[in-house]
């Protein structure tokens, strides 16, 4: 982890331009994907939305070291809030995003007050419990949320009143890509800020941070709330683009899968969240279309290989390869 700190020393100025070429390449890849795979826009949009969710998890887990298995609670809250807002009040997409972000942040703040006092297994269990309770409420309040049928009847207005959502999902894709880019830039600024460094400091040693006067608990609550807002945006996007919110948005599998994606990619660098999500979801997409039943073999083996042989995730591959080259005679 200290290599990560050395690589990410705070720089003067608002944005860190060190990996600008990589950022531009990623955005370029996002744009290129639209033209390369015009038939899979639905799937690609889901990937973009999932990246937002996993980025949010990276902020919590990779930077602040909060181990959670209930991140779907924040995503799902954003999704249900945006969906209900669209059905009952206004179908303006950007307003809906804001509602989703606020809902995710509020749920994160309230649950964080309890969660973040705990550690390790207790923290994991409490985070699972929060998501399960929310899912149970969504499942039982059938009249409002549609229960297990899902929240139906979402129909979004055009973005800015100009760009209408279409059946192929072209607008949805550009919309998701734009939101993702904005979220990514925002997170890059945040993790390079003193606030982001404090998060990493707490991860490394909460005692030392306390000793130098950081209010550790409240810092963690702030990070969790922020991540809740980001996850809420992801949830709101998914509600708006798919025009459906199902109970799975609050489910344990979503939390677990997000965790797997993040660790596949690599913790605490934001890029890992992007690569991990793309790799996981692409393999899932391909394996599930070839053989839906044996896909768990693939993902199980993949997870074990990464945990046993690539502890830094796929993002650590280049460094590892470079090391191998250097050591070879």
């Amino acid at each position, binding site marked *: 982890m200290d290599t990560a700190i050395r690589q990410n020393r705070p720089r003067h100025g608002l944005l860190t331009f060190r990996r600008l070429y990589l950022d531009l390449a990623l955005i370029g890849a996002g744009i290129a994907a639209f033209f390369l795979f015009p038939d899979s826009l639905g799937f690609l949009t889901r990937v973009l939305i999932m990246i937002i969710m996993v980025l949010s998890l990276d902020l919590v*887990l990779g930077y602040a070291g909060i*181990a959670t*298995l209930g991140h779907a609670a924040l995503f799902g809250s954003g999704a249900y809030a945006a969906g209900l807002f669209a059905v009952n009040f206004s179908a303006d997409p950007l307003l809906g995003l804001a509602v989703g972000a606020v809902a995710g942040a509020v749920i994160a703040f309230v649950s964080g007050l*309890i969660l973040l*006092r*705990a*550690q*390790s*297994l*207790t923290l*994991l*269990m*409490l985070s*699972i*419990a*929060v998501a*399960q*309770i929310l899912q*149970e*409420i969504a*499942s*039982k309040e059938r009249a409002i949320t549609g229960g297990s049928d899902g929240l139906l009847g979402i129909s979004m207005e055009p973005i800015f009143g100009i760009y209408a959502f279409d059946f192929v999902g072209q607008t949805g894709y550009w919309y998701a890509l734009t939101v993702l880019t904005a979220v990514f830039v925002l997170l890059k600024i945040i993790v390079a800020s003193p606030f982001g460094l404090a998060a990493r400091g707490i991860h490394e040693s909460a005692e030392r941070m306390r000793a130098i006067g950081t209010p550790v608990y409240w810092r963690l609550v702030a990070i969790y709330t922020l991540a809740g807002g980001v996850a809420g945006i992801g949830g709101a996007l998914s509600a708006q683009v798919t025009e459906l919110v199902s109970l799975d948005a609050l489910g*344990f*599998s979503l939390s*677990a899968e997000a*965790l*797997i994606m993040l*660790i596949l990619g690599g*913790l605490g660098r934001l890029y890992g969240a992007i690569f991990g999500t793309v790799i996981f979801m692409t393999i899932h997409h391909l394996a599930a279309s070839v053989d839906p*039943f*044996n896909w*768990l*073999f693939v*993902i*199980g*083996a*993949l*997870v*074990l290989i*990464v*945990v*046993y042989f690539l*502890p830094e995730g796929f993002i650590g591959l280049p460094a590892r390869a470079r090391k191998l080259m250097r050591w070879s005679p």
Partner: protein
Amino acid sequence: MPAISGILIDGVSYGMILFMISVGLSVTMGLMRIINLAHGGFALLGGAAAHWLTTIAGFGFVISTILAVASVMIIAMVLERSLYTRIYRFTELQQVLATIGITFLMIASVNLLLGSTILPIRVPELLSRPIDLGFRTLPTHRLMVVIAGLLTAAALYYLLERTWFGVRLRAAVDNRNMAASLGINTVKIYAITFSLGAGLAAFGGILGAELLPIDAYYPLRYMVLFLVVVAVGGMGSIAGSFFAAIALGIIDTAARYIVPEYGTIFFFVAMMLVLTLRPNGMLGRT
């Protein structure tokens, strides 16, 4: 008051199942300090083996149960020696990931061999008949579950409190390095305990198949349930697991009977309350 006695009997038998499956998890997690999400997988393997033995191979229920539990114990021993020795040194997060990966492989294997439908276990006719207890009748199966749970608890108590193995195990749970430097073979203790815990999970999975039906996705569906028992009871505490399992079993059953509109909310609220007040569980070490 048939309602209350009904809730109590169903709740206690449900709790006994939870106890039998979770206690092995609690001990291994307390002993090895690892988060093992694959534990429910051993219950699945036991249940699947018992399904195959009773319905396809045509063995009797008792023989099948013994064979299934024994084979799960062997599988667990092999896994412990091969995969888990590395997992012990992992960070918490890697443990979660690695054991989820193992769970996926278990699910996929059962799915490949036996399909994704419910895998019923054929029980002898004696057990499916109701039994008259004088004040009410109840399925013999429930009674057997309760008795098996109590016997398991008693046997575990004896094993841990009255045998040399138990003394060594408790020493290793308290302080592994100190135990090792006193000449206790902790590696062996780990392997035996892990295998024993997996065997108990298999046993509980087979006996509980009526309440928690066995299918390939069993470990994912009930993983949270088993972890809740461990977290509430306190890692490494057998008495804690016992009381937590019974209490959670009764709370969940009562909530289902009395306020079905709230489902499992009470179960999780109860857990959050306990963990907020006592972060290490009811009987966990602080």
